[in-house]
């Protein structure tokens, strides 16, 4: 069953990535070209998933939507990891009072989740892809600090680190050569789970009109547009909804699968 989890996760993530890649090379129609004559067509051979209220091909828009979902995910996870991992490493080796202060700060930060931060930032800088990336990334920094610190402390208490330290190797080098490689997988799990959260947040923000601006298609915006024409064509909701859920499910399963591989004891318990 655990193998199944990882397998389904990898498949879904690969599917979303494939959609984004294909969209750069080929889409059946121009995803932003308005064709008034083709308004609200039902799915058929010409338009696989039908068209929206502006006559735009929904399948093309779905493919292109995968791009902003992935780019927001990659950049925001990157921001969170680039800040959170070094800070976590530093705190793990620093004095105890520093750890207490930083951990308490991460507690407080959790009261300001990604979406609320993004709504605030969208007010300051206007809604855009960038504000969404920054807000989601910033909101995920605390978790990276916590995970990195916890993992690093475990490695730092091991004999080989003590040996390296007593051989006179400086702290930053032990951190680089011993600690980081040993907690790499742990950070990978965190990155995967954060990625899922980023997809959720990006969809909600673009639904609210606070992330990527039109005419660029996003899954969240497609959901908003589908909702506006729910009475005329309820089926339109289905595909962007499946796309968002599939992306989130993929990264969540990937994270869970990786975590179980890391910790064999969990495999027995489940």
């Amino acid at each position, binding site marked *: *069953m655990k193998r199944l989890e990882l397998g389904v996760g990898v498949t879904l993530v690969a599917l979303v990535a494939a959609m984004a890649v294909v969209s750069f090379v080929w889409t059946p129609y121009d995803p932003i070209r308005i064709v008034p004559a083709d308004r609200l067509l039902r799915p058929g051979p010409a338009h696989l998933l039908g068209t929206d209220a502006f006559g735009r091909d929904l399948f093309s828009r779905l493919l292109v939507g995968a791009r902003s979902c992935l780019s927001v995910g990659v950049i925001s996870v990157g921001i969170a990891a680039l800040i959170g991992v070094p800070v976590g490493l530093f705190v793990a080796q620093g004095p105890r009072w520093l750890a207490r202060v930083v951990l*308490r*700060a991460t*507690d*407080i930060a*959790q*009261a*300001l*989740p990604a*979406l*609320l931060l993004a*709504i*605030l*930032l*969208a*007010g*300051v*800088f206007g809604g855009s892809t960038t504000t969404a990336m920054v807000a989601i990334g910033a909101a995920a920094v605390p978790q990276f600090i916590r995970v990195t610190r916890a993992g690093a402390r475990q490695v730092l208490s091991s004999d080989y680190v003590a040996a390296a330290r007593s051989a006179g190797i400086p702290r930053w080098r032990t951190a680089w050569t011993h600690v980081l490689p040993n907690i790499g997988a742990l950070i990978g799990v965190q990155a995967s789970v954060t990625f*899922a959260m980023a997809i*959720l947040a990006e*969809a*909600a923000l673009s*639904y*609210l009109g606070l992330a990527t601006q039109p005419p660029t298609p996003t899954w969240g915006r497609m*959901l908003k547009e*589908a*909702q506006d024409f*729910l*009475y005329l064509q*309820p089926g339109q*909701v289905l595909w962007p*909804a499946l796309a*968002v*859920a*599939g992306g*989130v*499910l993929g990264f*969540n*399963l990937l994270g*869970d699968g990786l975590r179980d591989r890391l910790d064999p004891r969990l495999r027995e*318990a*489940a």
Partner: protein
Amino acid sequence: MASSVARRLGVFVLSLLAASVVIFLIAQALPGDVARIMLGNEASQADVDALRAQLGLDRPLPVRYLEWMGGLLHGDAGTSYLSGAPVSELIAPRLGVTLWLTGLALVLAVLVAVPLGMVAALHRRDAGGFVVSAVAQVGMAVPAFVAGIVLVAVFSVRLHLLPATGYVPLRSDPLGWARSLVLPVVALAAVQASVLTRYVRSAFIDVLTEDYYRTARAVGWTRGLAMLRHGLRNASLSLVTVLGLQLASVLVGAIVIEQVFVLPGLGQLLLEAVAQKDVLVVQGIVMLLVVFVLLINALVEVAAVALDPRVGEEVA
């Protein structure tokens, strides 16, 4: 226990101060001059300056922060620049909608998650448990607002059973109120129930390996009874902690859900205020939400000590 409560109280107050500074600084960075927006582009610079002085915008940041905090302590969150109404009067009528939505969704989520998590733990090696876990995993992946739109498509558009949008105050029409909240509450609870089910499941699985559970089974208790008598209290600890941590995301989920169902709650007010750069309203709402989350989490920590006295000792 008394000292640990006092220490938590101190930490709570410090957390509030830190959060208020951050929120104040972000909100003050809102671009565009409120005075200019209020008076329009044709107004003379002198008029704009006069209005800035009247609103107190010409004074230094620390002064404005202290004024705002001082007001908050008296329950005065300032006056909306645009509507001229006190922020607290704008928030009050909308607070009810958001609290009903959040509270009912949490209650529903717990009512669904506890039995499901228990079943999933007891049947963790067979098909039943697998199905529950799989459904929870999928449920976690569907954002609340997407669930909301799908529910509207099915129950409002297709079946005509429930209203798609709008809110009816409880006092004017209790039945209409309930009908207007069914879909948003279910949409919001679905995600939370999925998250909670996973935690309840693993909490109960932990119980299954404990000696007291084995003893209870050995003296002839059925699995269900042993679970209820011993498992529930142990699971409740992790359930309460997770609920506290999830609260922030439920509130944010409620903000988005309010947009889906056009409910006149805090979320609607917040998004309007952000669009109009009504800084004090934005500050007030975000601060209120953060205070609420921090307060509940402080209470959760105290509750955790009450549920399991060992927790207090560990931390101290």
